[in-house]
């Protein structure tokens, strides 16, 4: 039998993806396209929040949406019907997250010439999407009231990489033991820079604040 040979590799599993993501971010910067990576648990109200937000912003920005799910195209169809903006559906083929390469493939299938803002609705999951940089200009997440105010403690990485945390379903807060002040405190412990915006995508309360935040973020990024 041949003697065992050891080949040293010493390489992070995320290294290639981090490089792809940096390259994509650079490319989008040149094209002037702001990519928002929106993450959350399944059922937190990402799609409903997006529909409200897009309807507030579609006269001010040229927007396109990329939906990522393990299967089905219900979200992409819903967005297109409710807002009239272009949306495409990506399937991750069982994968729990989207990486930079998949994001690029998605973008290649979109009309990108006249777009200011692409919103990527990532797979519903608070763990894996946080580890894989998509090449986005900005990371946002939605936490909904029924999930509980302790989630920033349980999923610290997700909360530490987000520029903004939207707290959705505020309309049902009276029925849950959700403490918004505690939630803000826990988010600040993980990420002092994160903005926290309470909303109800159902009633529309607070959605304007999120839309304004996003509009500002896109404007500031374009000026940089």
């Amino acid at each position: 039998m041949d003697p065992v040979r050891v080949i040293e590799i010493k390489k992070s599993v995320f290294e290639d993806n981090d490089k792809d993501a940096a390259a994509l971010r650079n490319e989008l910067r040149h094209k002037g396209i702001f990519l928002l990576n929106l993450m959350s648990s399944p059922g937190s109200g990402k799609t409903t929040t997006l529909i409200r937000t897009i309807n507030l912003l579609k006269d001010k920005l040229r927007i396109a949406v990329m939906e990522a799910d393990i299967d089905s195209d219900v979200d992409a169809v819903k967005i297109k019907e409710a807002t009239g903006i272009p949306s495409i559906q990506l399937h991750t083929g069982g994968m729990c997250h989207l990486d930079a390469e998949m994001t690029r493939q998605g973008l290649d299938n979109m009309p990108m010439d006249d777009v200011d803002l692409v919103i990527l609705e990532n797979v519903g999951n608070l763990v894996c999407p946080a580890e894989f940089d998509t090449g986005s200009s900005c990371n946002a997440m939605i936490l909904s009231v029924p999930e509980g105010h302790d989630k920033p403690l349980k999923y610290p990485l997700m909360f530490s990489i987000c520029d903004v945390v939207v707290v959705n379903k505020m309309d049902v807060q009276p029925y849950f033991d959700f403490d918004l002040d505690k939630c803000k405190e826990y988010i600040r412990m993980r990420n002092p820079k994160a903005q926290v915006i309470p909303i109800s995508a159902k009633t529309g309360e607070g959605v304007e604040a999120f839309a304004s935040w996003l509009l500002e973020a896109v404007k500031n990024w374009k000026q940089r």
Partner: protein
Amino acid sequence: MHELGIVFYIIRDVKKAAEENGVSHVNAVVMNIGEVSTIVPDYLTDCWRWAADKEDMLRGCELRIHTIPAVTHCDGCGGEYATVEHGRTCPLCGSENTWLLRGNEVEIKEIEV
């Protein structure tokens, strides 16, 4: 919960390294996994067995995990302490101004061929 996805990345990198070194079969892959990397070692080895056996180059290849203990540095007192035991608050001075020094690794250390 994302161990299978991670396994696909490991397979891609290992195959690339093996090809670059003109190797046709890999006997073992050694990983450095940090204690707070969110990887569950048992899930990773289970997913590995399933996925690696589908690749000619990696059939029967063993995945060995080398755990890196997590250590946090405290800016309050300059001390270092075990992250898993004490979390983000420094047990030496009570400061919350702390950051992870190591323990977040998901790294391919070496391969045996």
